[in-house]
């Protein structure tokens, strides 16, 4: 008799992803769905999708979802969580959303120690609008608004939001992971689970920054995009636990 060893996660809808081939979002969505199921919290979870490629996350994640204006995910999540403290509230945000237009909302939510979980997908580019420079774009990296590459004197340095959030008093768990190889995908899932557990135990603000591939806007094949993460991006954005006041949970 055949044994089922792999299936669609319970909290993933039966919709075909709109994401480009090789994009990291579909992997991260699936990990979120798996974690919600494994922690048995899907029926009390409310998600806040961003403006950007992942705005359509509610087409895939089968939990209550409330769309935030661009960058305001942390503020919207604050409102939901404060009214429903026994529910699990997460935001899912890209680098432009969280580290440019939404910097203030994110830092202050972290500083207040809002008991929410932030999933921060860093692919170094504004994807949905067609590949403009993001706050996280690397020096020298080409984009439609840095055609000759990001220049320090003109465009500033790439920002490390997770490090900034780590110095706030209210953040308790921040880790940077990636999804360009199976090993890293597994690590990301562990980090997501820990972030949600942090919230379940009421410990404070948790965030997982996931370095993710955007082959379309990087103008690379999916395989080259994964190699570029390993060889280039991770030297500026090293994968590590940035802050952990939670310990083993």
């Amino acid at each position, binding site marked *: 008799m055949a044994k089922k060893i792999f299936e669609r996660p319970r909290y993933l809808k039966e919709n075909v992803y709109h994401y480009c081939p090789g994009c990291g979002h579909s992997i991260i969505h699936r990990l979120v769905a798996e974690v919600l199921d494994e922690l048995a919290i899907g029926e009390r979870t409310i998600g806040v999708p961003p403006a950007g490629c992942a705005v359509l996350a509610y087409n895939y994640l089968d939990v209550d979802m409330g769309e935030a204006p661009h960058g305001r995910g942390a503020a919207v999540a604050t*409102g939901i969580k404060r009214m429903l403290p026994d529910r699990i509230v997460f935001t899912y945000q890209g680098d432009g959303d969280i580290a440019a237009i939404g910097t203030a909302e994110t830092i202050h939510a972290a500083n207040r120690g809002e008991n929410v979980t932030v999933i921060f997908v860093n692919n170094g580019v504004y994807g949905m609008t067609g590949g403009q420079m993001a706050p996280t774009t690397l020096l020298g990296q080409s984009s439609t608004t840095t055609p000759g590459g990001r220049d320090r004197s003109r465009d500033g340095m790439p920002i490390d939001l997770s490090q900034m959030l780590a110095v706030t008093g209210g953040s308790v768990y921040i880790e940077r992971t990636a999804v360009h190889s199976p090993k890293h995908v597994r690590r990301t899932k562990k980090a997501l689970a820990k972030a949600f557990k942090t919230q379940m135990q009421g410990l404070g603000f948790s965030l997982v920054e996931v370095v993710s591939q955007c082959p379309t806007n990087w103008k690379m094949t999916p395989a080259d995009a994964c190699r570029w993460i390993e060889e280039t991006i991770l030297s500026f954005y090293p994968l590590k636990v940035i802050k952990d006041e939670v310990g083993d949970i």
Partner: protein
Amino acid sequence: MTEKQLMRGSHVIGEAAVRAGCRFYAGYPITPQNELTEYMAGAMSRIEDGVFIQAESELAAVNMVIGAAMAGARTMTSSSSPGVSLKQEGISYLAAQELPAVIVNTMRGGPGLGNIAPSQGDYFQATRGGGHGDYRHIVLAPASGQELADLTRTAFEYADRYRTPVMILGDGMMGQMMEPVTFPEPLDLTGLPDKPWKLDGAKGRPSRVILSLLLNTALEEELNWKLFRKYETIAQEIPAAETFMTEDARMVVIAYGTAARIAKGAVKALREKGLRVGLLRPVTLWPFPDRVIRDMSRSVADFLAFEMSTGQMVEDVRLALEGRARVHFYGRPGGIVPTPDEIAGVLHTRYERSGLGGLS
């Protein structure tokens, strides 16, 4: 009903909001409305399920309100003119996502940073849907302490009934004024209808989404027409205005809020001199009470709009009348609050120039 008490306008709004079931307030300091934020900080700390957040910006405050409204709470934020400009992003989303919320604008002199004196310069922003997109929201204009209490209760009722943001449009004068007020009893929140659209986790039901992104233009058009029909219903059901000495009036001054109180003093003074003048005070600014003004034009040929601005509501007066009567205007912008004597003088001059007669 509770006993009559003397209270500052900003505090009246706060107390009335709490009694109307407001359980979430987020705000940011700005003069002249800090007393409301401070009142809510104290009041919410005394309610078991009450939440007060001093936000990092007006933008954050209104977005927190969006979240709390999604969760089904009765919510409020407040600010003054420059801060309300920042809130417009969130108000557009509240309208699109059909979320109930109450926004208080204690108007001050502008544009720009302006000053902290009472003004009515935000009428256009309030009544035309001050954010992006094709929407309106209800605007209530209280003119006394008691009305601040009553209309705050009404604002929460309308917000829930029509699933829309509702603005209470006052000014620094309304906020600071001390007047006797009687509050309604606190609302029993368990008696309120359920919100079958709220987000509280998909336990035993299909998951829900509250969104405003509609990439399919046919669906976006459908939403716009749906909102339009809702606004038509609101425009049928809630327009309100107070009339004062208009029965035999030959000239009627139209003014709202603080300006209406000043105008009322002027009308009383001129009546004592025998001039047949009256006052019409819109209580709802959107929807504008145009029918009552149009009906009045059967017996009144001269209207004078008086505003603490260079002339914004006067456009709605003209639209209501569609040329049926002469529309005069007098305004004092920039935070100037004229005296009843000044308005009486203006009315008197207009009255004579329009050939309605002088002193008897």
